[in-house]
């Protein structure tokens, strides 16, 4: 049995334990922390056994599950999925720590977080399309509940919208997967859902041209890309902080991951032909997301729109088909995962202590909560791409790749980065400086359990910002498999 299987099962075991311990809600957070902590430590142990230099998938396991249809329980990690896998185990752990004071239906809450963890880890490690799809769907349900139960005022609308939007997208993906399954069976002579095997097949162009748009649509909804992004702001606004953190930090990455792993790797030729479309969508996301972020009064909505803008960087990086651009896109996924987690945590702290997230009702908070404000601005800096933070290296690489592929289009990408500076600083100034409304006079500063996860994220963001190679080393293979050109060949 692969260690991945154990890591996938652990949260489920934790969730079952929580089910049994329903009558003692005060225990549930300890169960959740131990469980997510164990998964995180387990993933670190796994990481130590990962050979960065080797090609292909590692920690493989393949167990026949549904042989008639060529479905098996196949998991493994490669350079593309490993960073995202690690990101997930880390964020889940931190989110549980952050949720220290959740008492409302605590066993259910933590149980959902654990199921969500299994789902996301499954998506990133599945090597069978069927398994992939199943985990993909499994992720929806706990998130639906997290938003719907612990969310804000319009939570039921937001949770339904989230569920339906993403479900439709995944069904479209299912259709595309079905089509590829048969096409591959024609060539191979046997039925298989195995991702590596189907990837090897190589489809003809006409088929690719049909399937790629479907896959693009499916993953773009998740990413999300303008114009199919509208579920995201609603979901974020209503979601509790922990759910937002995971939504932005990990769930959006599923879209980017799928795009690379499925859409681009299986339909490379069509992907090249559709480059114009993808680039337009990406630019639209980057610029539109940034502009809309400007006019938001709800801090969380602002961050949600900034996520859309930043995921546009991922999309255009992938579309550049350039080693550096793709590396930047993958890097951006991890970077955005860490940074958006910080952003939403910071936003959660404000909501928690000041009682509102509406910028117009905030002000002068720096004098009341200097530590929280410092963390918030550092997160903002990280997100707006100030050098030294991870976000910068990601955007830097993406822009470099875009410049190599599309020339001066990069100025539009840069516009997104400039606007980010604008909306973040403007928001920060209104929140942290200016006159403080009277009702905020009693604000307390950040709690330790809110500070700790943010500090961990901050340290990682800066460390990887200054030493990106530590991470890039693990991503090399994924870039290579997509462009056919090793990222390291450039130096030879």
């Amino acid at each position, binding site marked *: 049995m692969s260690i991945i299987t154990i890591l996938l099962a652990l949260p489920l075991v934790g969730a079952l334990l929580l089910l049994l311990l329903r009558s003692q809600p005060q225990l549930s957070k300890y169960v959740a922390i131990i469980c997510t902590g164990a998964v995180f430590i387990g993933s670190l142990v796994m990481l130590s056994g990962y050979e960065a230099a080797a090609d292909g998938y590692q920690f493989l396991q393949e167990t026949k599950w549904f042989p008639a249809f060529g479905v098996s329980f196949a998991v493994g990690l490669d350079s593309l999925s490993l960073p995202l896998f690690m990101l997930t185990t880390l964020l889940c752990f931190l989110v549980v720590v952050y949720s220290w004071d959740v008492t409302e239906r605590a066993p259910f809450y933590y149980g959902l977080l654990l199921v969500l963890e299994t789902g996301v880890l499954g998506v990133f490690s599945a090597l069978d399309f069927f398994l992939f799809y199943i985990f993909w769907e499994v992720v929806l349900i706990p998130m639906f509940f997290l938003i719907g139960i612990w969310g804000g005022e319009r939570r039921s609308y937001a949770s339904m919208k989230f569920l339906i939007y993403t479900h439709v997208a995944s069904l479209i993906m299912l259709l595309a997967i079905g089509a590829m399954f048969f096409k591959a069976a024609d060539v191979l002579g046997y039925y298989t859902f195995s991702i590596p095997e189907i990837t090897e097949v190589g489809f003809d162009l006409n088929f690719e041209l049909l399937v790629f748009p479907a896959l693009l649509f499916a993953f773009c909804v998740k990413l999300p890309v303008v114009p199919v992004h509208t579920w995201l702001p609603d979901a974020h606004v209503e979601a509790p902080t922990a759910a937002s953190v995971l939504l932005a930090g990990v769930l959006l990455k599923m879209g980017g991951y799928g795009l690379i792993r499925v859409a681009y790797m299986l339909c490379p030729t069509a992907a090249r032909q559709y480059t114009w479309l993808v680039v337009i969508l990406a630019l639209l996301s980057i610029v539109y997301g940034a502009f809309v972020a400007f006019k938001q009064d709800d801090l969380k909505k602002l961050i949600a729109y900034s996520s859309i803008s930043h995921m546009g960087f991922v999309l255009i990086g992938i579309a550049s088909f350039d080693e*550096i651009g793709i590396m930047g896109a993958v890097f951006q996924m991890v970077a955005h995962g860490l940074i958006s987690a910080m952003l939403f945590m910071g936003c959660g702290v404000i909501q928690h202590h000041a009682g509102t997230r509406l910028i117009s009702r905030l002000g002068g908070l720096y004098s009341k909560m200097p530590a929280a404000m410092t963390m918030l601005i550092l997160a903002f800096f990280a997100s707006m791409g*100030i050098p030294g933070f991870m976000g910068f*290296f990601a955007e*830097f690489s993406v822009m470099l790749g875009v410049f*190599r592929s599309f020339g001066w289009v990069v*100025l539009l990408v840069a516009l997104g980065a400039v606007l980010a*500076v*604008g909306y973040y*600083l403007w928001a920060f100034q209104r929140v942290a400086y200016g006159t403080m409304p009277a009702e905020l006079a009693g604000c307390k500063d950040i709690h330790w359990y809110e500070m700790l996860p943010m500090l961990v994220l901050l340290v990682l963001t800066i460390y990887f910002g200054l030493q990106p190679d530590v991470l890039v080393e693990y991503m090399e293979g994924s870039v290579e498999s997509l462009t056919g050109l090793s*990222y390291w060949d450039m130096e030879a």
Partner: protein
Amino acid sequence: MSFDLLNILLFLPLLGAAVVFIGGTLNKQPAFIKGLALAVSLLPLAVNLYMLALYDWQLPSGNYQFFGSVNWIDSLGITYTVGLDGLSMPLVFLTSLLTPLVVLLSYDEHKDLRTFFTLLLLLECGLIGVFVALDFFLFYLFWELVLIPMYFLILGWGGPRRRYAAIKFFIYTHVASLVMLVGIFAIVIWNFQQTGIFTFDFVAISEMLRSGGVSLPLNLQYLIFPALFFGFAVKIPTVPFHTWLPDAHVEAPTGGSVFLAAVMLKMGGYGLVRFAFGLMPEAAVHYALPMAVLGIISMLWGAVLALAQDDLKKMIAYSSVSHMGLLLFGMAMLQERAFNGAVLQMFAHGLISAMLFMVCGILQHSVGTRRIGDLGGVASVLPRLSAITVFTFFASVGLPGLLGFIPELQVFLGAFSVNKLLTVIAMLSMIVTAAYYLWALERAYFGQPSADLQEKKPHDLQWFQTVPLLVLGVLVLVLGVWPAPITDMVAQGTGYIIDLLGGVR
């Protein structure tokens, strides 16, 4: 050893910032924090003085001292490469000198001292980094890092419209930086296509250009040069990209203004010489005339606007725009003497503008206003401050015998041999400069003090204000009389660039 020395110089302020922050957290006594900050800020200065002693004045131009290069981000060919030459050494010295002086000057600051001094030291680190970085990525990193402490200095300790000024400052310079970044991309990618080596190492790229006999293709140069120029011109700032500067200055606290005018503006000029001129001499020649015209417009327009100001600080801000125009004009003349004068102007203006903002800040502090209309007769109330103000103004006007005179003389002498018409037009600005300074002196400092002013009995210079001004004033005076060290150093720094430009013409 010498590489280590430079690293120490670069990271001491960073360490100092951490020390001040932690010390300030542990002990909230203002006196303790001030003393700690002063002590910590003196260390880089000491290191820098030691480096000056080690400095090799004989090294041929184009070579770096205290040089070192370490691989950093291999995946993108990014290195940690730092070094000093005659171009950067004066500016680094300026930075490390001004930091303790500003700390001293801020002795009566009350608000959140711990953060204030931490930011100042961070700013110092960023600024030194900009001047010593010889890798495009590293350069860009420090270039952007400088923005953050300055942003907070304006935001936290600024005047009434500080929020507007801070964000304007940040966004203006950030836009410029990104455009510059795209230009850098183009250079790096071209280098990759030529050599097959993907590197951001500026030294490697410029070596390749200089020794390999190749140069960037002209059409590419004509695109990249404006991109880089835009990035640097906003920072200098040149009309029409200057509008952030008066706002930032007016709102910034004195310490911030000093750094802003004395050092941060020099980042633009330094970048222009080092990267734009150094890598693309052909384009520099190509765009010389428009640059010269921009320089002249900056000089004149800045001076005229300064004449119209009622706020003393705003007047000084516009005078900075005007003086920085001289820098651009001198460079665009592509003539050795003018070029050296322009580069020297950076150092000279650094010292003098620091003094200008200091006296202005002290005035505001003790009298409570900077509005020329509300002042009058300050000289009789604050004789010592007024005396040093007069000295400073004259230095800025370019009185012979003071440092401000030398670059102006060099630029105009050099320029006159190239283009008489433009030089004459540029010299008009000198007249306006003299006019606004003298007029301001007359209105604000001489004449009868208002009853209000007399009533207030403002403090004259205190010891912590006198010391920085004296240090700077002595330097201005000594170097004005005996400029050889600094002119030699500058000539050593610019020599190879002038050769490049000469080779093109």
